[in-house]
């Protein structure tokens, strides 16, 4: 009997897979539930990327409109959006903070050295715990946070000049106009 059952294994594995895929159809990988939008940003205190002894926490960021970009050196799409971030930083429209997500400190530092550093400061989230609090699904992701520390916008995937000009910059202008 067990000999016979052995030949059912591939079928069983496939049925399991089919069930998973069926479930997957009703899930949208791009649509990450963003219950965070309109809420205060999750609290965190993390070592800084450039200086492990100093920390960066949510309270340091309060008071100004800022952009939080989640990135990692293993993430190819982050490389694609890097020029856009540099452009945004250069425009002086907003301060960009980085959350270096599940990365190696050395490679992240040399990445910034080689490609240019658009960030005011980076929090180093080695185990990705803060990323989970922020509902990070995969790098890159970009959040826009207002003066009160409320998350106002989340962009999943690489930023493009189009997204920057059509979504991020108008939003930033509107947020800055708020009192």
């Amino acid at each position: 009997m067990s000999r016979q059952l052995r030949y059912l294994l591939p079928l069983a594995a496939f049925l399991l897979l089919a069930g998973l895929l069926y479930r997957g159809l009703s899930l949208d990988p791009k649509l990450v539930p963003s219950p965070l939008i309109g809420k205060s940003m999750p609290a965190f205190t993390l070592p800084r990327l450039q200086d492990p002894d100093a920390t960066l926490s949510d309270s340091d960021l309060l008071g100004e409109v800022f952009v939080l970009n989640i990135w990692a050196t293993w993430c190819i799409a982050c490389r694609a959006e890097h020029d856009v971030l540099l452009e945004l930083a250069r425009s002086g429209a907003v301060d960009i903070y980085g959350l270096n997500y599940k990365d190696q400190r050395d490679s992240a530092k040399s990445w910034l050295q080689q490609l240019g550093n658009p960030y005011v400061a980076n929090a180093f989230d080695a185990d990705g715990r803060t990323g989970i609090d922020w509902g990070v699904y995969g790098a890159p992701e970009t959040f826009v946070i207002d003066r009160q520390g409320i998350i106002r916008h989340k962009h999943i995937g690489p930023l493009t000049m189009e997204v920057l000009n059509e979504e991020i910059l108008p939003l930033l202008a509107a947020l800055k106009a708020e009192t």
Partner: protein
Amino acid sequence: MIPELGHFALILALLMALVLAVFPMVGSLNNTPGWVAVARPAAFGQFTFLLIAFACLVNAFLVNDFSVTYVAQHGNTKLPNIYKVSAVWGAHEGSLLLWAFILGGWTLAVALFARSLPDEMLGRVLSVMGMVSIGFLSFMLFTSNPFARTFPVPTEGRDLNPLLQDFGLAIHPPMLYMGYVGLSVAFSFAIAALIGGKLDTSWARWSRPWTTVAWVFLTIGITLGSWWAYYELGWGGWWFWDPVENASFMPWLVATALIHSLAVTEKRGAFKRWTVLLALLAFSLSLLGTFLVRSGVLTSVHSFAADPARGLYILVFLCIVIGGSLALYAWRAPDVSSGGSFNVLSRETLLLGNNLLLVVITAFILLGTLAPLIYDALGWGKISVGFPWFNTMFIIFTPFLVLLMGLGPLTRWKHHDAADLLRQFRIALLVSICAGVLAALPVFKEGSAYAGLAVMLSVWLVTTLFLSLRRRLSYRRGVAAILKDFSARGSGSYYGMLLAHFGVAVFTIGVTFVTLYDIEKDIRMAPGEEVELAGYTFRFDGVESVPGPNYQADRGTIRVFRQDREITTLTPEKRTYLVQTKPMTEAGIDAGFTRDIYVSLGEALGGGSWSLRLYYKPFVRWIWLGGILIALGGILAAFDKRYRLAVNRKVMASPATPKDKLATQGQT
């Protein structure tokens, strides 16, 4: 009018597929030769109608018929003609038509060229292919009709995605689909054999050349895709472990296992159940890839527009095809005889080891690809699996794979004496270890254990291949005899193996060296400025605006010097396409045998300054050179003389018996 003709031809093709699926199968089960004989004409009819449908869609693009929704979405009057044709498979509906068309082509090819098959077997094989075809044709007609009209008719089309306006990507999908769909032949052979209960060596021999040809196409397709990503995406990567890349790589790995396993089944009658399972799996993974690309369950740069209804349709289709075939396997496989026995130290064992490694790697890739979905479905949150995971997994398993690859050709079937084997390969072992240690020393570059390992494995592969060749030719005395050996029966398989395995050695070197030693620099440059990288001096001569047929390009000029001698002038471009205003990079590449110099334009920084990416990529060509050698090896093997002999034998009406193979044993 012509689009309706295409639509109508598509409906007729579906009807033909129905005929093909039903009559030969039923006829073979209740012994009605007349019904079985329907197979060939039905295959021919199906192909004819698919050809008409395909030609109609090509025509719609060429004459800019924007009343057809698909053409309006992906065509444009300014599109160069070659891309008007490739736009046919540039998106979901048309690429499905290409799928169906190629499936029709493979079905016709089997009907025409598999003359050595008994009619009953041929009927069943074609019938299974017809069933697959029904799935795709009805999917297209009910959910994704490429000939649907639109009103009011737009005056201009929305143009093909600029990423796809490239020669490499124009031919990449057809090659890949030839591979994916070609695996349906091996699949159909396996199903037919399971139904008939005759999983014998002749079944293996019949499916072997077909499987190899499909595998060659898949190899070429993947290699082209990797090459395209390298020169088109602008950051010099050649593989990204993207879900869709994985979707093409998994069938390739399993098909690789399959062609080796088929060899064992053909020659030794062993591994029958395993081989048939691999044949089912290879095509199942192709279908799974189709699902992943088109259903939107995973995010990928390659994804087509996602539509849950389409996803559900493909999933049901998957369940019927894969679930049905695996159920058939579970039912019939226990009755299959075990076949030839073999010792622990034998070529069979080594091939089985390689098979298992390939399947394990596939399983890990599948797991990594689906992990985001698994986490999401089980409510564990959202994750993404990146480069490090896949790379680590690959680095762990491939060295064992290559070790066994070296041993395999030196080992005899059935049983090989350990002492004798050791005597044979000790030179290879010595040479490769020396080469590896040498390469790991900091004499060259900075020295690295990985470089040492890669060199050791490649040298091991090459020396063992050389030993195997020497042993084979030692039976031939004199130059004439050796030359004669090239045209002997079974020599195609042997030299094909040699070439393909050599390709793996070349590939290994390429991958390792470019990963370890590539140098990149992102830099802001003003016109006239110079910068040095890896011993080369790059001089930036500014950017000028150049019009293209359907785009406007900023073309940079970078002159590259080495010790004051000008090597080349590179002209990377940044193109803005007129309709879909996405910026596209065209890298400037100076290709070389041992290194590429690669420049891509970043952003304009004002005052004529630009951000530039400069790369020095050692041995990167070897990656694709390896791919090409592997494919060439496959071609040699597929066109081995003995498959043509099988054709002749059929004409003389004497069935092929396994005994015939003994004559060529030990040669492949």
